[in-house]
Each structure stands twice: as C-alpha cells, then as structure tokens.
C-alpha cells in the first residue's frame, strides 16, 4: 500500500481510481477499460510530474522523510558487493544508527558509512531512527581512519534528523564525537564523497559530510536545524515549520545556488521512493563519476581540495 503525503491527495485519488478500474476489469474480462485507463494514467502522471516539479521546501522535507524512501541499507544492497559491516567504537559500544564497513563498488574496495533510519517499527527502534549517539560517530571516525590507512576511498550516505539528544549521549561526549568525526573527514588522505540521500540534519550530518564532493538527491534537505526546531525557537511555534523550512533555504536547489553542495542527483518523477532501483542506480553513477574525478590525487591534494572548498563557502560574497 503506497503511503501518500498530505499534498498528494489528487494523485492518490487518481491512482485510487486507476486501481479500482483495474480490479473491476479483472472481475469482468469482457469489459474494455483501455481507453479510460489510458486517460486516467496520463492524467495521474501529469499530476505527479507537476506536483513534484514545484515542491515547496516543506513538501521536500516530507518527501525526504518519506517512510519508504530508500535508506542506507537499500543503497548498499544495490551498489556495494561483498559488503562487510564493521561494528563498535572500541570505547563503549555499538551504535546501529550509523552503519560502517568495507565493500566493493564498481570493482574497487571502498569504505561505506551512513545513517540508517530503519524500514519498519522494529528496525527503526534498532537503528534509533537514524539518530546516532557518540559511539556511532566514533565508529565512523574509526572506519575513516582505517580506510585512510589502506588507501580506500570513503563514501558516506547521510540521512539523519540529527544526532540523538539523550542523557547518555551527552554524558559520553556527543559534541566531541561529532567534532572529531568532522575533523577526521577533513584529515583524510583518500577521496571522500558524501551524498545527502534524505535528511541532512545539522551537526549530526556534517560529521559525515565535510567531504571533497557533497552530492544531494533532488528532494533531500540539508539544514542547520530541523524546520520544527527552528520554528519553535524563532517563531515560538513548531506549527510554523513551513515558514522556517522556506526561510532557512534547505533544498538541494538552494544549496547548489549557495555553492554548499556540488551536484544534484535527479530523482525519478514522484520521488526516489516511486522507483528506488533507478534512484539508487543514478546515485551510484554520480558517486562513481565523483570518485573518478579524484583518481590519482595525492593525499595532500585531497586534503587541500577539501580545505579550499570549505574555506571558499560564503566567501564569494565577501565585501
């Protein structure tokens, strides 16, 4: 059963009618529904295309959080061979909100790291809805260091509402863990490509996204604070999340304009969840291209590239 978002009611109606028609026809094979079905399908497709061509920042946030949007595990399943997850931060525990490991991508060994939100109630709980604790960030930093030692490129898939705001997380140094992970990203002597596949929530996202290339899926969002959080602080009303989403400029299109990201990966019409296989394949192609661009770069050149890239952000407008 498809999950429709609140702005998709017209699409839901049309697709519901199509489904109904098909069921009726299935019961009565003599019935000719071809013409009617064709009309409805054209209309539904147009409606979907038009709706997704002009999503508001808040609607994009909803798409980025869509429950069946492909997650880390889906990407790794389709793109990475011999994926070998590695667990633990070697200090305290294992945090499944971030998955990290080794694998083969387009024939070469890489390290893959990313947030996993989970796909059903049980796995969502297991992965803490993709909200990592310090152990997750320390594991990420540990695997990045491992990749650096063995000259393996690192691919990071970012999909988190934010780092987990809990008592234990604070006691074990959530802030420090995020800071160290960001620092590790910037120190790597191997290529680092980060892709925002859903939500890029604040410091919890940056910790995996201080990369040579930062790519974003067309309907993903990346922001300093969630629209709800921003609204509750600045408007003192979390109901104003729509306004906050618009004001903060959180869409891939805005961020490309601000030169914060390098590339937008187009999504299938209706969002990545409508055709996950294609969305993931296109993402794989973009990652492959980004890695190829950095082929043969020395560690020093890669560090320098990252440094210059981040120092340049915002400076274009220096007065």
């Amino acid at each position, binding site marked *: 059963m498809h999950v429709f978002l609140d702005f998709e009611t017209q699409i839901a109606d049309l697709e519901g009618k199509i489904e109904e028609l098909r069921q009726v026809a299935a019961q009565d094979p003599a019935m000719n529904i071809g013409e009617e079905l064709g009309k409805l399908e054209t209309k539904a497709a147009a409606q979907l295309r038009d709706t997704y061509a002009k999503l508001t920042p808040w609607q994009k946030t909803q798409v980025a959080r869509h429950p069946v949007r492909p997650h880390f595990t889906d990407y790794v399943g389709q793109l990475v061979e011999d994926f070998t997850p590695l667990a633990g931060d070697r200090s305290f525990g294992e945090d499944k909100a971030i998955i990290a490991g080794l694998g083969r991508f387009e024939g070469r060994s890489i390290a893959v790291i990313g947030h996993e939100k989970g796909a059903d109630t049980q796995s969502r709980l297991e992965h803490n809805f993709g909200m990592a604790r310090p152990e997750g960030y320390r594991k990420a930093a540990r695997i990045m260091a491992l990749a650096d030692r063995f000259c393996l490129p690192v691919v990071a898939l970012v999909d988190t509402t934010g*780092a987990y705001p809990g008592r234990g997380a604070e006691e074990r140094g959530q802030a420090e863990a*995020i*800071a160290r992970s960001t620092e590790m990203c910037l120190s790597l002597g191997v290529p680092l490509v980060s892709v925002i596949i859903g939500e890029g929530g604040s410091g919890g996202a940056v910790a995996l996204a201080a990369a040579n290339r930062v790519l974003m899926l067309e309907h993903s969002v990346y922001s300093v604070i969630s629209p709800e959080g921003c609204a509750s602080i600045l408007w003192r009303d979390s109901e104003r999340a729509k306004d906050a989403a618009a004001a903060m400029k959180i869409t891939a299109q805005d961020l490309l304009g601000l030169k914060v990201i390098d590339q937008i990966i187009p999504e299938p019409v209706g969002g990545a969840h409508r055709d996950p296989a294609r969305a993931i394949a296109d993402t794989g192609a973009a990652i492959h291209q980004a890695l190829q661009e950095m082929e043969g770069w020395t560690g020093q050149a890669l560090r*320098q590239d990252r440094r210059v890239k981040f120092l340049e952000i*915002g400076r274009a407008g220096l007065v």
Partner: protein
Amino acid sequence: MNWLTNFARPKVKAFFSKRNTPDNLWVNCTNCGSMVFHRDLIAQQFVCPSCQFHMRIGPTERFKAIFDGGLYETFDLPDVLPDPLKFKDEKKYADRIKESRSKTSQTDAVVSATGTLDGLGIVMAVQNFKFMGGSLGMAAGEALIRSAEVAIQKRAPFILFTAAGGARMQEGILSLMQMPRTTIAVQILHEAKLPYIVVLTDPTTGGVTASYAMLGDVQIAEPGALIGFAGPRVIEQTIREKLPEGFQRSEYLLEHGMLDMVVHRHDLRKTLSHITHLLMDRSPGKSDTPPRALDPGAHKIPSGVDRNNLQADHSIDSEISKEEEQRARLAGQTP
C-alpha cells in the same frame, strides 16, 4: 480617580525607580540574590563574593583579566556578506543584527586581540553571549579562522573563550558550514604546532560545542557553565525524564572525562599562563614530533627522510601559498 492615584503615586514611583537604577551601583547576584556593590563586582571579575557564582562577561572584561597589565590590541576581522538568506522570522535578521550591534558596540559575536601573558605573546578570541547568544555565523567563523592565521603569523598560542547557544539559524546552512570551516582553523593551528586552548564559559552548546569548542589541546571550563550538544529542555522532552542535578555543568563534564580542568575565574590567568608556557617551552629533542619552527633548519630531520618532500608536505607556508594560488584560480574562474 483621585489626587492620590493620579498624581502622588506616579511621583512616588518615579522617585523610587530613579533611585534604584543610577548606573547600576548595586547588582543582584542572579544565583543567590545577594547585593554586590558594582565596583566590588568588577574587582571580583563578576564572580559573586558570597556564592562564587560566575556571571557572564564579555570580551573587554576577559581581555583585561588575562593580558599583562590589561593591555591588548584588538585586530580587524573580515567583513562578511550581511544577511545572506534575507532571513525573516517574527523579526528581520538584519534588525536583530542592528540591535545586537548597538547593544554591544561589536560588529559580531567574536572579538579578537593580541597581547602578552606573563611576557608570552598570545592571540585571544572571545565569544560574547550578548551578541545574538554568541551564535556562530559567517562572521564568527571568519573571525576564528583569521585569529588562527594571526596566531600562526605571530607563532603565538591561541586562547579561545567560548559562549554560544550554537549555530546562527538565521544564516541557515551557511552557519552550519562554519563547523567544518572552524575545524580547519583548528587543524592549521595543530599543523603549526601552536597551542589551541579552549575555555568553555556559560553557556556553550549546539554546533559550537560540536566543532571548535571541543577540539582544544587543553579543555578548560569555568565553574558551573552549561556545556553540551543538545539543550537540557530538548533532552528532557526526548527521554521524558528529569535530568540529574548538575547535568551538563562543568563539574559533571569533568567527571565524565570531557574536560581537563574546571578553573575558577580568579585562577584562569595563572592557569592559562602555565599551560601556554609549558606547551611552548617544550624541548624539541624530547619529543617524537618536535615543534616546527618557521626556519626548517631549526630542528633536526630524521635521517633517511627527504627534506624537500617533508617541507613540501608539511610546511605551513607552502600550504598557505598553495591555498592562495588555488583561491586566486577559483576567483578567476568565477568572475
């Protein structure tokens, strides 16, 4: 209604309110409520004499308290594009900035200065919580990068006093990008082998804690400062339980291994002097990684290592010039 309410009462009120506020001669301690004479409070560096509560102070008070003889020179910080997103919530961001500027006479949240500490040249930056909650935006980010660069130019330790709610939401993603950008500032200090000392003051939270504020060579906090990633209210809402007494306060962090020390404001100058002198006086022969002087001949390079390579790979000078080159190239590409 009558003469008493319409005339006498306002007069009486005005008389008292006037008498209560002349130049804030007396200040109420926000913690214990005791009245402290303003001049005593200044002498005590805004630490309550009865309960030792550390009140929030700004850059001027910090500079005066730490630098030799209270003498220092602030230096210019880069201008940044104002209000890059044309942000407006219930108020315009541009207006909030204006207000903070007139309230603090500062351009933005960070003020930086050079001076000496027991004779040793140091660079110091202070985040002022009074300027939009000390928040980290483009200006503060550039200020920290510039301060690190000045420290490297002067071969001086960099001492940073943090105080901030976090990243400045009104600059959206550009404020979030200050996390990696300021981390680069810390990295260039590390590479130059210059001490980067962080003094966390009340409050330091959010993206500030999750970047440069937790990356110091030595981490110091003032007593009772709120330090954390998420705010206590957000945590209580998330876990639906009451947080323990002293949660996210300096002493709590010290106990959990997140700080080197908690230092009373009156002892900060002495402690900072000790740490910076000890780190800078390190004898090159005693360490695996000797401090690198600008003159590459100043310390021995292990045999078997190609000196030219070593320089090309690690010299800050060459790195900076490379960066400038690349920047110039980038600037050329995007007119």
